[in-house]
């Protein structure tokens, strides 16, 4: 049964390095058993946040709880969390087995107990037969597995992962995403995962926290973050988006800075400066005047067509703004080319209006 107490609770956590504010009054609760991703560009404070939870840094101000216990000033060896480091940080002078056993040895767990636990952990990550290899005799993916086993063997209450897939090549990364997710379900431990790869975060996490400039901008399920970004940075950072600047001029109405008024539902008061975010795949392309009744639309001209293999991106300009429309490369798709007059339409509910 998952605990009702949050696995990790950050309350007004701030971390300063000299004059630099790395983490800026972050409030965050991560539930027991959750797969949580901290997502953001490099330097956004996500790794520092992870290190604060691990105890490798101490917060300047704020309260940090793990399962209700205040741990803000405890050293890492006295916290019930373990970390999978960015480049695994396996001990090069020890075999895979000795690496995995390290945490148990340091806690002076009786030998009779260490052996089966190490064996189970190695089996959990499918590394049987590799026990006697040293890290430099293992591939990147295998090192990753040993690092996971080394952390999980201690049965931490929370597992912290710092860009664990960053060093792997694309194919392996995709395979490991699925495996990591399955592993988390199997062991039922709370995973807190740091990544700059939005695709990875969307694919793996139960919830995502998007960070920028030390601040936590939005927390939510992947669908929520993708479909309902609450600010411009999140809309821009997650996936592709057409970001159109404008002002709310009436109920569900936004006048863009180029003078075109479009239908875009929001509860922002008229007069508010906003950005309208429209995903390229949520927009549809028609011959001029061919938009469905219930769709919002603008007329424009195809400026450029980009061929992606599995899809085509049509850049449609209207006044001096433009909207990218993505169409899957299916037989019978719109056969329009550069210079054609077209109408771009979308479901009014598929745009997100965020205040600047």
């Amino acid at each position, binding site marked *: 049964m998952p605990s009702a107490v949050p696995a990790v609770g950050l309350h007004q956590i701030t971390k300063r390095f000299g004059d630099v504010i790395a983490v800026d009054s972050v409030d965050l609760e991560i539930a027991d058993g959750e797969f949580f991703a901290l997502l953001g560009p490099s330097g956004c404070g996500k790794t520092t946040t992870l290190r604060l939870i691990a105890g490798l840094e101490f917060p300047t101000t704020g309260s940090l709880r793990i399962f209700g216990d205040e741990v803000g000033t405890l050293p890492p060896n006295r916290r019930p969390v373990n970390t999978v480091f960015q480049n695994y940080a*396996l001990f090069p002078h020890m075999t895979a087995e000795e690496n995995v056993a390290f945490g148990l040895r340091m806690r002076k767990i009786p030998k009779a107990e260490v052996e089966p636990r190490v064996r189970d952990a190695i089996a959990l990550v499918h590394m049987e037969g590799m026990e006697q290899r040293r890290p430099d005799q293992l591939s990147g993916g295998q090192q990753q597995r040993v690092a996971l086993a080394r952390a999980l063997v201690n049965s931490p209450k929370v597992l912290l992962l710092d860009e664990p897939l960053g060093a792997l090549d694309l194919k392996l990364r995709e395979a490991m995403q699925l495996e990591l997710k399955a592993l988390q379900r199997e062991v039922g431990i709370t995973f807190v995962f740091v990544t700059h790869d939005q695709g990875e975060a969307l694919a793996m996490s139960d919830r995502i926290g998007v960070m920028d400039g030390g601040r936590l901008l939005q927390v939510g399920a992947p669908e929520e973050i993708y479909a309902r970004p609450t600010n411009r940075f999140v809309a821009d950072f997650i996936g592709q988006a057409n970001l159109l600047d404008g002002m709310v001029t009436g109920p569900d109405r936004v006048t863009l800075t180029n003078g075109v008024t479009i239908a875009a539902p929001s509860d922002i008061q008229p007069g508010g400066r906003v950005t309208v975010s429209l995903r390229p795949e949520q927009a549809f392309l028609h011959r001029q005047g061919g938009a469905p009744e219930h769709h919002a639309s603008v007329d424009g001209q195809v400026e450029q067509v980009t061929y992606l293999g599995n899809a085509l991106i049509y850049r449609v300009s209207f006044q001096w703004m433009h909207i990218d429309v993505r169409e899957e490369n299916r037989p019978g798709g719109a056969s329009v080319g550069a210079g054609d007059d077209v109408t771009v339409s979308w479901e009014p509910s598929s745009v997100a209006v965020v205040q600047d």
Partner: protein
Amino acid sequence: MIGRTARPGSVTAWALSGTAWLVYAFFYAPIVLLVLFSFSDDRNVGRWGGFTLSWYEQFIDHSQLQNSLWVSIRVALLSTVISVVLGTLAALALERFRFRGQRVFDALLYLPIIIPDVTMAVMMLLFFSEGIRIAELLFGLDLTKGFTTITISHIAFNISFVSVVVRARLSGMNEQLEEAALDLYANRWRSFRYVTLPQIAPGIAGGALLALTLSLDDVVVTQFASGPGSTTLPVFVFGMIRRGVTPLINAVSVIMLAASIVLVILSLATQRLRTGETGRTLGARMRRRSGR
């Protein structure tokens, strides 16, 4: 090597390999001669008088030589142990911590490597004569120069060399390993004992052997720090030369040479242990060593 990479038969290849042999001859001919004449049965060095081992026998019977050899070994061992501990601590402090005056400490630590031996020797001479006077005035201690002062002066220059070698090793080590150890329930001491120390052990061993070699070889600093009672083998030999050279000197030199070669080879071997990447730092170190 040179001959193989150039095109066979060409004039360049011949010239290059010829130069190489010439350089080797220049390096090793004196050593070969030295070794050869240590077995010569003639009082004059440079005149071959037939094969004998009598000079080596003389060395074994020579109580003053034996005495100075014993001093050399004790000084070398003691100064190595102390300078390895202090040098490693200094390296750790500089690589792993930030403290006030760090840059000054860093610069000062390298000073004994840079300053000429003679300067160092004169400094030691002044330091010890003043120190002995003050010790006598304040505490009534009757100190003389000898074993202790030699050891102290050797520690003084060896700390720098040890810390340079250990630092090179430490800076090549992934700091995240120590964080990983802390994360895996090790405290600071156990993280050092089980992760940092095994990682820098080749550096420490290399530094120790280097310190041992430097201490055994040193003449200039030792000469100024030693007293009439006890002196090291190289200084004693240096004194002997002034009273006339016999093949006994050759025999002593061969023994010292052999000991040095063994230590240098051990030093190289331990440095190579487990990593192939220390070649660069090693080269830099050997250059510095030959500068002493």
